[in-house]
């Protein structure tokens, strides 16, 4: 199980703005093992999204990325744009934060799924259709035929999020990146989506990077956790380690706060049956 899928060394991201350069991610090293779910925890603006976006080549040209990111024997940071594009969506798939705005409002769901398939395979229209329906069924979406004909605004956030996860999994990626997939959802849908992720982990054994600022969510899916603060990786370990024996003062504060909230939660409920 200890085959390393993604190995990131000395990753540094800076942005050029009005002639000045600001560093957003400092000298980060981490790796993702096969079948493992790595959680990245941090406040908004701590550089966690930036880290994965830089690896996948999704940043604008005014960002400067240095370091190495080894994936299947290739350094992603030195690959050409076209080869990165081929990897994105097929080998490395990603789920984004805002499901409602992540689909082109003018295109039907079917065409947006189809273009993903077209980008990575040479399937014909019939096969694409079959696969699209299969994808929706797998994500337990009822009446997939109808959903395919809908526009994004006609579907609920949870449903679109599940379609997004479905698209990500349909190409059977080696690495699934989830960038705050639950933040924009309400509590109940959040739970559903988290459950879906846990199932993926159990059944497909896909390696994952799960980014969030929610300790509860991360404890539910992640095997190992990185804590980021102001562009630096400040702590690393299992959830238990982080919660009890955090090395970094910032992490400790985060954990204590969460514990305090959980205490309160338990007291209110009368018994300790939360998500923790």
């Amino acid at each position, binding site marked *: 199980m200890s085959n390393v899928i993604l190995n990131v060394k000395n990753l540094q991201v800076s942005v050029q703005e009005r002639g000045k350069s600001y560093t957003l991610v400092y000298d980060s090293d981490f790796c993702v093992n096969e079948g493992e779910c790595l959680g990245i925890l941090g406040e908004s603006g701590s550089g966690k999204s930036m880290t994965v976006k830089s690896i996948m080549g999704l940043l604008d040209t005014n960002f400067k990325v240095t370091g190495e990111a080894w994936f299947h024997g290739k350094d992603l940071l030195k690959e050409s744009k076209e080869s990165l*594009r081929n990897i*994105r*969506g097929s080998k490395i798939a990603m789920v984004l934060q805002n499901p409602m705005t*992540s689909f*082109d409002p003018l295109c039907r769901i079917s065409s947006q799924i189809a273009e*993903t398939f077209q980008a990575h395979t040479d399937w014909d229209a019939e096969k694409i259709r079959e696969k699209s329906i299969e994808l929706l069924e797998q994500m337990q979406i009822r009446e997939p035929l109808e959903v395919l004909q809908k*526009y994004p605004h*006609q579907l609920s956030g949870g449903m679109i999020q599940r379609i997004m996860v479905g698209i990500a999994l349909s190409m059977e990626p080696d690495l699934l990146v989830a960038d705050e997939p639950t933040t924009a959802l309400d509590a109940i849908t959040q739970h559903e989506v988290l459950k879906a992720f846990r199932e993926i982990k159990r059944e497909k054994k896909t390696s994952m990077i799960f980014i969030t600022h929610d300790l509860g969510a991360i404890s539910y899916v992640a095997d190992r956790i990185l804590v980021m603060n102001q562009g630096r990786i400040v702590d690393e370990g299992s959830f238990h380690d982080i919660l009890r024996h955090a090395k970094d003062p910032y992490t400790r504060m985060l954990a204590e706060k969460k514990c305090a909230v959980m205490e309160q939660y338990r007291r209110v409920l009368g018994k300790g049956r939360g998500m923790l």
Partner: protein
Amino acid sequence: MKQYIMKRILLTIPLLICISFVCFVFINLIPSDPAEVALRVRQVPVITDEAIAEVREELGLDKPYLVRYAGWVADCLRGDFGISYTNPSRTVAGELARCLPATLQLAGTSLILVILLSLPIGFLCAVYRNSWFDKIIRMLVFMTTAMPAYWIGLLLMWLVAIKLDLLPTSGSGTFSHLILPAVTVSFTYISTYIRLIRNNMLENMKQDYVLYANVRGIPQKKILIGHILRNSLHTCFVAIGMSIPQLIAGTIVVENVFAWPGLGTLCITSIFNRDYPVIQTYVLLIGVLFVVFNLIFDILQTVADPRLRKEAS
């Protein structure tokens, strides 16, 4: 959907009434007495007080204001806009009909030029933003917003027609007469739309759906044309459509520079000759065009955009 369109059409009626009322008030504000003017138009040699009173009654000028307004609107709806003051043998409707084709030809050609030039240039500026091409175009756009249209016309006339002797300086008739005025009219609009398309595309590029398309590994070209451009065109199409009446009104200056025998020249001549019925009808025509084009493109936008379609139905 049908209901929505009906509602939109009904909502324009008060606006049309407002416009027509302003136009009606306009002609009633002029310093000279309409009855006196009418007598002069009929070339009555001596204008007496009795004659004026007679004509007043005949024209219904002694009736209350609102009754006259209703009568005037009814006349307009029948296509009767009155008689030209300066040339009593001609009706206003006839004068406008005579000049309208030339103006439509000019405005139409300009519109085609605007679309053909501003779309690709704006697109390229957005795709290669901050490149030298983008910077030069942006500078040109900034310069042209500071240039009066008539001066552009004079410059073009001097450079192309006099210096290079390629095209005629003024007049109309052949296609070569049309080129210079059309280019001049389209100049200001092209720079406006280059800016609109460029900024709109840049705005769209920042959207989540573009990031997500990249995440899924969709080829860059497809994202640009299939998603970003498509979304921008929706906005720009409506903006260009709604500015068609403005384009028609905008010919007024350029027509005068190039002696183009359209509505603009007619309007300016009428102002000099104090030919009020013609001016009034011209203003009414442009006002109605504005309302109608706004209506048409508003409805088209609702039909074309799935989000708005939902709200409307």
